[in-house]
């Protein structure tokens, strides 16, 4: 039996999906089309004329060591953000799952950072790690460590990773906790009776049963690290020092709006568009096919 609602005419269904189509068209298809179009041109510095260059922008980008370096930076950054935020979230979720009393309070408090906008989170961490007045850098100084993320690229990377991962922990935590609580208690008990102690149970039962959640979060977090961390990076390092924290999406901004090279910026957007497309395909393909126990 057909369970879906079917419409006879053409106009009503069209009308019903129209808002979604309009939103997608205005905020996605139009700018994406613009980006693809512009990526084929080089405009003059005053924006008065454009010169058609074909795939010249792409050729230049892929041959540009700074752009390739940005790829590596992005990879390092997104892997670190994903691993840190998911690792900590999983650890906290396992603890919360064992908690009986006060788990509501614990959960609520853990969700708060998610409500903080990335740019604000960036500023918070920037204050704490400020090289002159930051609390954390002062304590580090007491310990004999001279924190200076303004000069040291690795420290800058560490700081943006921590600031980006911080807000993300809440989100991952919620999903992990839900995933953990969906595992039937009796399965864990059966494993306990079978002789598995906590760590063995986690490794052989809990983690495998959690894998659909883990995979989903993996993709979502990578996408987050790729795109939504702009605010954090902009407020904390502005991509520096020496481009050590310039991830792809930041380079789009830096080259286009600061460097005024709109053609290159558009080409970079197109490359990012392709990456998101691939990630989405991967996500759908695997999550659809994923075994649901």
């Amino acid at each position, binding site marked *: 039996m057909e369970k879906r609602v079917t419409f006879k005419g053409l106009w009503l269904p069209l009308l019903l999906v129209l808002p979604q189509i309009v939103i997608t068209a205005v905020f996605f298809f139009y700018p994406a089309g613009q980006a693809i179009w512009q990526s084929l041109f080089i405009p003059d510095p005053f924006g008065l004329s454009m010169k058609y260059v074909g795939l010249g922008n792409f050729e230049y980008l892929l041959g540009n060591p700074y752009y390739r370096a940005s790829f590596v930076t992005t990879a390092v950054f997104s892997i670190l953000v994903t691993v840190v935020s998911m690792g900590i979230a999983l650890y906290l979720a396992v603890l919360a799952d064992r908690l009986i009393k006060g788990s509501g309070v614990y959960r609520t408090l853990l969700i708060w950072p998610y409500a903080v906008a990335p740019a604000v989170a960036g500023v918070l961490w920037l204050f704490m790690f400020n090289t002159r007045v930051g609390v954390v850098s002062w304590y580090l100084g007491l310990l004999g460590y001279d924190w200076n993320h303004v000069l040291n690229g690795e420290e800058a990377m560490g700081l943006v990773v921590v600031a980006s991962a911080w807000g993300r922990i809440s989100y991952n935590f919620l999903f992990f906790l839900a995933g953990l609580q969906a595992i039937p208690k*009796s399965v864990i008990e*059966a*494993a306990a009776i079978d002789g598995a102690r906590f760590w063995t149970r986690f490794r052989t039962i809990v983690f495998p049963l959690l894998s659909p959640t883990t995979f989903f979060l993996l993709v979502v977090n990578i996408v987050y690290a790729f795109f939504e961390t702009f605010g954090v990076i902009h407020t904390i390092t502005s991509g520096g020092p020496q481009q050590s924290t310039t991830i792809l999406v930041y380079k789009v901004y830096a080259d286009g709006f600061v460097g005024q090279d709109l053609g290159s910026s558009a080409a970079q957007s197109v490359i990012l568009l392709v990456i998101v497309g691939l990630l989405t395909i991967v996500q759908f393909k695997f999550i659809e096919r994923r075994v649901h*126990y």
Partner: protein
Amino acid sequence: MATVKLDSLKKSFGKTEVIHGVDIDIKDGEFIVIVGPSGCGKSTLLRMVAGLETVTSGEVQIGGAVVNDREPMDRDIAMVFQNYALYPHMSVFDNMAYGLKIAGTPKADIIERVDTAAKLLQLQPYLKRRPRELSGGQRQRVAMGRAIVRKPSVFLFDEPLSNLDAKLRVQMRLEIKQLQRRLGVTSLYVTHDQVEAMTLADRMIVMNGGVADQIGAPLEVYANPATEFVAGFIGSPPTNFVNADLAGIRNGEAAKLGVRPEHLTVLPTGSGRLEARVMYTEALGAETLVHLELADGAMITARRSATEASAPEGTEVGLDWQDRDEMLFDHTGKRC
């Protein structure tokens, strides 16, 4: 194989005591069924033996050793859960082998033991399948297999048949009984189904509100229930209760008279010890259940063989029973 002993075992959740002291000595190889309505504490009792619930006071002994503080894995037990609790991401073989692998059993040994268990449970064709590709009965067997391969000294069953349909339940009941006989492993079996309790048990514990009302062999419990609750819970249809005054019993303490449905004789009105009106009859083929209303409005049931002519609905009849079938209960529900 081992004996199990519960010694004034109590359990409280917070300030609420849910098990008020249970004592039993279980012999090696005995099949004990813990039966009672939901919420009577039967599962909690079993989980305390398993080590999945802490013991508030009293002792659990397995094989003569107090195991109160031992982890489940250190108690040498195996448990079959109501929802089977199979590992969904593992094949049937891996499900059964899991405990052995953790114990570090050599591979050849594992294969041999799992194969033996699979043969016993007719699971050989399914060893490579995942649990979700099996039927309810097959999953049930895998859960049993997982318990068997580890050769534990005690089997614990937590309502293992309640997720199966009626026909399969009867079949699996027999299989469990046979298996237990063959392996001779001491077993504790929790159920709310008194038929399961009657058919499986060497001895049964009838639980009521956290108290073991009666412990004994099924037929002994049936013939001689210790409390009103046991008389009403064991047997289907349940024991009839008649107000002692109405039944003309003047025995001081006695508040209620209990008579099993099969012990009631239906006579023409005016004869027998009690007058009643036939409300409706249920002919079940081999037997007929006659539902009667007493003068005080209480409903009782008589179980007659189908060959007897039964009084039509709406007629007045007399009821009689033998003195030896009388069970008297005082106002607290105790036998007197």
